[in-house]
């Protein structure tokens, strides 16, 4: 299959693979912090930063845009935190506000830039739905480097993450700084998001963080195995989606990656070994059979009771 693809497509394939792996891993952390939708809010919040990065650089330069995206996503995270702690507005509404207002601001800026001379060819629209095909080799190297960094950070401090996610009090007791880990987590989340928006787009980036982690949960109860599985699912979705999207002229990459991830989720949801629907049905069926057998046994014993009257006794013999 690889041989049939152009060299550029192979690069793109490699980058979405690495991206999927990184997103799958960080998605697991987000899953256990119960912050799935935070990734959606932050991905939307990255848009104004992308445009500002483009304006500052003057040309389409990925490092500038990624730095801008990271700055504005971090600002979004800060706002969510601030609204949540500083007022009685709850977290879900805070995320909705940051998501829509930042995105609206991003669209404002995007429209202004598109009106500038030469702005129409900026390819900025690709950041909304992802256009992995537009990436050049330099971009791929940078994406792959950042994604590898994320994977390494989680792998090296695996034990700390486990402690921090499942027993934060014990972690604090051992001298692990909760604030530091929180900052680290937000940094990793923002890093994965900004790396991914080029390929998947700001609107669908959240899928790559949410879906593989939830799917992996259906196969195992162990956190370590869940991380590995989630990484595999994310990488698989990235590759499958890219392969489908190169089949058509100008097809966006993002939606196909998401659909591939959703298909993996559907399979896990139905056939997962731990909490899947099918396993649940089989277990319920076996229990029902066992109950029925016990009931049957009772019935036999009832039939074998001693005859109560003489005529009954005569009928039996």
């Amino acid at each position, binding site marked *: 299959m690889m041989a049939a693809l152009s060299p550029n497509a192979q690069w793109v394939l490699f980058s979405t693979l690495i991206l999927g792996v990184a997103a799958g891993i960080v998605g697991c952390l987000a899953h256990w912090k119960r912050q799935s939708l935070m990734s959606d809010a932050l991905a939307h919040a990255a848009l104004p930063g992308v445009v500002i990065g483009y304006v500052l650089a003057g040309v389409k330069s990925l490092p500038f845009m990624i730095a801008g995206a990271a700055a504005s996503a971090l600002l979004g995270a800060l706002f969510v935190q601030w609204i949540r702690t500083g007022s009685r507005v709850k977290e879900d509404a805070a995320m909705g506000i940051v998501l829509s207002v930042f995105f609206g601001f991003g669209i404002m800026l995007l429209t202004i830039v598109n009106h500038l001379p030469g702005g129409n060819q900026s390819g900025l629209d690709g950041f*909304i739905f992802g256009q992995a095909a537009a990436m050049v080799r330099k971009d791929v190297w940078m994406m792959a480097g950042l994604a590898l960094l994320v994977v390494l950070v989680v792998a090296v401090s695996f034990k700390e993450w486990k402690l921090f996610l499942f027993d934060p009090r014990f972690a604090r007791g051992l001298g692990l700084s909760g604030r530091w880990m929180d900052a680290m987590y937000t940094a990793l989340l923002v890093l994965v998001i900004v790396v991914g928006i080029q390929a998947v787009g700001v609107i669908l980036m959240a899928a790559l963080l949410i879906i593989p982690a939830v799917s992996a949960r259906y196969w195992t109860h162990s956190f370590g195995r869940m991380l590995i599985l989630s990484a595999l699912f994310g990488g698989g979705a990235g590759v499958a989606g890219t392969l489908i999207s190169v089949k058509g002229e100008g097809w966006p990459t993002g939606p196909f990656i998401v659909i591939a991830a959703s298909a993996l989720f559907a399979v896990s949801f139905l056939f997962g070994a731990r909490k899947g629907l099918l396993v649940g049905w089989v277990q319920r069926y076996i229990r029902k059979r066992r109950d029925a057998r016990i009931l049957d046994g009772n019935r036999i014993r009832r039939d074998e009771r001693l005859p109560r009257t003489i005529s009954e006794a005569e009928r039996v013999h």
Partner: protein
Amino acid sequence: MSYTGWILLTASLVGISCGLVGTLLLLRRMAMMADAISHTVLPGIVVAYLLTRQLSGVHMLIGATAAGLLTAVLVQWLHNRGVQQEASIGIVLTTLFAVGVALIATRVGNVHLDVQHALMGEIAFIPWERVDLPGIGSVPEATVMLSVVLLLVLLLIVAFFKEWKITSFDPALAASLGLPVALMHYVLMTMVSVTAVASFDAVGAVMVVAMLVTPAAAAYLWTDRLSAMMALSSAFGVLSAFAGYYTALWLNTSISGSMAFCTGVVFVVSFLCSPKHGMIAKRLRPARQ
């Protein structure tokens, strides 16, 4: 009425209906359902278009409402089967939206229906697509649709105001009183879908989220009364629509984008200046012993 007048009227209708529905969503802590439904309206519209090959108001309304309800049902179903509420919203939202975008890219791919339009809306084109109403004259189609939706929403909220209040603030009490809590949940989801699709054409998906969540959150900081909160939230929606329109005119940029941005400005002002829950008031108030 003038061109500007129609745009402002349409955007204000969006602001009022979103303000009313958004208040209920916010109090039930379902703000992110607004995000989900306003995105999943897209595949509903695309499928309706693929089936009927026309972009008329009625087909879109039916398809999108069905998609919105499907979203609510799917989220609930996954949640009942052990997926976290947030994660199930995320899964359903991104999957259905991706299907919509993929269908547009592969099957539709023409000038009538494009994703850009769906996300950001084209309120500038609204005054040109008109229908003739007997007795009133020629009125933009979107304005008519939004007026009908607003009337419907207003009717439902006023008629069952007490029920909405109880189910929003104390669902357990409502259930013990014998109120149909689940049914009201799905009625609310239908209202969100209908509002989202009617506003969709005018202002786009993301702007619908802004109008549903942000003015309601701002109003939540000013008052403790449900009726006052609904009125304020609608007023904030209208205010943002006006401010957004003139900002967009001034900067020559996307109208719906700047309306969304203005809801944010209204929220920030409320966040800082509200007399009871605002930042400044909190600083000035002497600390309670």
